[in-house]
């Protein structure tokens, strides 16, 4: 039986779609009106989204096996989209530009669509997942993933501006230097949160499996992702890399994030089978 909260999440998916379209319209028609309208839609979606996650959490307790809604692919995708929307709205406020929404809010929408294709029942927790580390591990990892998603969206926008230099001079688009700084800041935040995610995962693995590190494909790919962003940060801080090179590396890094999240489960086998 599909929980009622999932129907609300279906509505949320459509609001994200309209928000994404409004952000694209902001670019296409270059009318100021679309920016605040898109932001309002995103905020509305995020509020309902938050409510739906809490609702599902509560519903699991009413079923008698309550647990945080982080236990399978459906729940993780819902949470991923939530973190993307949340971080995006924070960045939008701080950077005072609506231009990046067209590159980021579609990611939240796509996450919700993919979630919509998964089984939605609330299942009791497997013994292996019954741990307080579950919440810390999932929240840190997904904040990291979402931050990298933002940096990739910003990087895509930067590269498009770079390809059409005239676009950068339009008043309604952020300056490349501003974008460059945002890309860097989102990478730093993601890097720290992914480190925290790996650390919490490692401590958890030590209590669950007796091994803090097993070279399981999920672990290995999270490390690969971390190494790629470590390259970006060192190249920037010490070698002064910025602009196009960092933007391209940010896209490569996000490719690693996507592989860690989806590719490992689809193509490789290992201990992290919960995400299927």
């Amino acid at each position: 039986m599909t929980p009622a909260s999932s129907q609300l999440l279906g509505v949320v998916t459509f609001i994200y779609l309209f928000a994404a379209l409004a952000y694209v319209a902001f670019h296409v028609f270059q009318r100021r009106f679309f920016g605040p309208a898109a932001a309002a839609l995103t905020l509305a979606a995020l509020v309902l989204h938050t409510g739906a996650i809490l609702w599902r959490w509560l519903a699991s307790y009413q079923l008698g096996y309550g647990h945080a809604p982080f236990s399978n692919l459906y729940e993780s995708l819902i949470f991923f989209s939530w973190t993307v929307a949340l971080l995006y709205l924070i960045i939008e406020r701080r950077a005072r530009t609506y231009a990046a929404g067209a590159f980021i809010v579609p990611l939240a929408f796509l996450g919700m669509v993919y979630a919509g294709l998964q089984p939605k029942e609330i299942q009791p927790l497997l013994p292996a997942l019954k741990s307080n580390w579950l919440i810390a591990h999932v929240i840190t990892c997904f904040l990291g993933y979402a931050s990298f998603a933002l940096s990739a969206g910003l990087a895509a926008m930067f590269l498009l501006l770079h390809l059409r230099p005239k676009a950068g001079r339009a008043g309604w688009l952020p300056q490349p230097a501003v974008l460059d700084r945002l890309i860097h800041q989102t990478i730093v935040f993601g890097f720290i949160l992914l480190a925290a995610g790996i650390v919490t995962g490692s401590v958890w693995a030590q209590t669950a499996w007796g091994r803090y590190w097993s070279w399981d494909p999920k672990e290995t790919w999270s490390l690969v992702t971390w190494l790629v962003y470590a390259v970006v940060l060192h190249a920037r801080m010490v070698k002064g890399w910025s602009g196009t090179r960092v933007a391209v590396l940010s896209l490569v890094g996000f490719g690693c994030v996507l592989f860690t999240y989806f590719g490992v489960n689809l193509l490789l086998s290992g201990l992290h089978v919960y995400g299927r």
Partner: protein
Amino acid sequence: MTHAPAAARLVGFFSSVKLTLVLLAALAVASILGTIMPQDLPAETYVLRYGPGLYSFFYYLNLFDLYHAAWFNALLGLLMLNLLVCSTKRLPATLKLARPVSGENVRPDFLKKQPLFGQAFLPGPLETVSNRAREVFGRRFGRLRRVEVGWGVLFLADRGAFSRFGVYVIHASLLFIMAGAVIGNLSGFEGRLDLAEGEAGDVVMGAEQTRLAFEVRLDRFQVSYYPNGAPSEYRSDLAVLENGREVSHGSVRVNHPLTHRGVTFYQQTYQTEIQGGVGLRVLRRSDGQRFDLEVQPYRPQPLPDGTGQFVVREFAHEVEGAGGPAVRVLVRTDQGAEYGTWAFENRFPGPSGERQPYVFELTKYRVTSTSGLMVRQDPGVAVIFAGFGLLLAGFILTYLFSHQKLYLGLIEQEGGVLVLAGGSAHRGPASFQARLEAVLRRLEPGIPTGKETLDDPC
């Protein structure tokens, strides 16, 4: 080109960030390779897949146990050496940057040359203006220290110097983590201890056999289930015995290991086996006739009316969706019917057994469970966890704080006081500049001028 002495060149090589980037990229590529190439399979599988020639080549490169290969560990070792040499080389410069400034020799030009700068002109006598400036600036930039200089009054604020060392803490944490891994490889052990209920043991089977300094006894093994039949908990109740005397007891569940004298026990597997004879009631569907019998499990038995055979197989605490406990019974009749069915305790199976000519009910049984415990001692774990703590602390120091220096100069001029505010922030210079301008505006609206320079790419 000048020829530096060999030692200096070596230090130069090992401290270069180019080496860091190459090593990070190489480790990333190698790690990916290890996820594509299945690890630790039997040799025959690889030979079948790659052919003998390619197999020997891959074997020579240690690709089948890549993460433990000498060359992979050499890459990790090189990265640690690189990090150590690079950090050591940079530390003196950082110490110099972090040193507090005395201020006596600071000239007004020095203030104007600061990466972040603003100025204002305020009417009033020097002492009044300086008291007000000290109060307003102090609120946003921390405690101001007054220095007497020949050309006027100088205030200094210097805070967050420790933030410059965050990156060293991060690098040190990685050394801790690697050191912990090495300690774990050189000492400690890992193995299995299988205990049946009531059994005590102290020999752990691993790569080599380890005898513990104490004995562990399994008092009870239990599996509990959710209403839908999925397992909710595996639990071993253990007692620790020293010299035959029970010194402590506790339970081991998944995610809740038990540690005694540095040795940790983890719930890994279990097996439940039937002990002795099994009592069954057989129902012959054709005429409703029932037979009571007691049989040995795992051995073929004739059906009570002699028209076929059956065998009692594994025991199950819970049959998914159908309850439990139960034993599996396989039946073969002389008419050629062949099927498996569950014999539940004190009841015949429901509708699922309707088309089976014989169904069974479990009337008497005895089982014992064997719990498979993973046993591990790893003195490196504490070092690694310390490294984890340092890593996160290092990130907080590095990115949540910033080393900020403020020089506030007041020069008495005709009709008032010229206020020069210059400074630097090693992180977040934009917010520092914004604060500088806001404070100058508060001193007297409308006057501030500042230049937009960002000295720090971070």
